């Protein structure tokens, strides 16, 4: 099915989901998954946990959809849930002191050379991201992974735009120090 020229506004989708529309919920998930993943990864530190947190957060958001007083700002509201769930998940992990899943790739079942390279890159990125503070990770991932602007990040993470820029600056510098310019170059080619 062809995508409509003007995407349906979040506000409309939220109203439809409130009435039980599975299609509207599907659209909301697809639209905001990457941002949710960025925030979850920023808090949890690894992709596998971040995916679990995202799944949990979307279901939680659906259950509490009546609490979303400003459906036009659904993304910011959702990300607050993601942050809380990710925070709880991290604490739960710390209590369990389980073996971290870093290095395990969600697509590790595939043994193609490209997927192996991708898994290796993911592992290196995760290790580099682990050197950042939680807000630095969240800002750099929202900005560079999902293309958010500082104003949107500031609104969603409840920080100032200046702070968002500072976090991004420090995050990128730390990532470059950790990964090296050649590795970053490698990523650019990979893209």
């Amino acid at each position, binding site marked *: 099915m062809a995508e409509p020229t003007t995407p349906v506004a979040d506000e409309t989708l939220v109203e439809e989901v409130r009435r*039980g529309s599975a299609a509207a919920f599907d659209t909301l998930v*697809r639209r905001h998954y990457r941002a949710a993943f960025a925030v979850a990864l920023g808090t949890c530190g690894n*992709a596998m946990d971040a995916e679990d947190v995202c*799944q949990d957060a979307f279901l939680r958001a659906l259950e509490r959809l009546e609490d979303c007083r400003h459906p036009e700002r659904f993304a910011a509201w959702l990300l607050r849930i993601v942050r809380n769930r990710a925070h709880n998940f991290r604490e739960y992990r710390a209590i369990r002191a389980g073996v971290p899943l870093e290095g395990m790739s969600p697509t590790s079942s595939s043994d193609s050379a490209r997927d192996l390279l991708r898994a290796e890159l993911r592992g290196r990125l995760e290790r580099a991201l682990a050197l950042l503070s939680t807000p630095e990770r969240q800002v750099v991932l929202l900005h560079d*992974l999902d293309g958010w602007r500082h104003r949107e990040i500031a609104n969603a993470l409840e920080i100032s735009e200046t702070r968002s820029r500072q976090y991004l600056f420090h995050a990128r510098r730390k*990532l470059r120090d950790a990964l090296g310019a050649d590795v970053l170059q490698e*990523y650019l080619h990979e893209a």
Partner: protein
Amino acid sequence: MKHDRVDFNALDPTADPRRFDDTVRAITSGAASELVRRRAVASVVGQIVIWRRPLLMAATLTALVSGTALWHAHRSSQAAQTSGVVEALGVPAFMASWVRADETPTPAQLLVALEEDR
């Protein structure tokens, strides 16, 4: 500055469309029961919302008509009740008029009235 951007493509959960579809499907199937519940609620609430305006108008009209009718009935029954009591007790007409007007007659008025009545 675009060249400053860190390439997180390797971490992008949407980069592999098939895998992303699986992820979304896992979430939507987990949400199925809640969506069914919402549809059921919406069907009941929806009917109420659709009929809310006509129901409110009908209720308002009924209340107005009933209120007016009750007020008229109350007034006429009150008047009939007062005159009936006065007649039953054999109260003279001039005294009844004092009672209705809530007036206290002066001793002189009372004397004149009693004399006239005699």
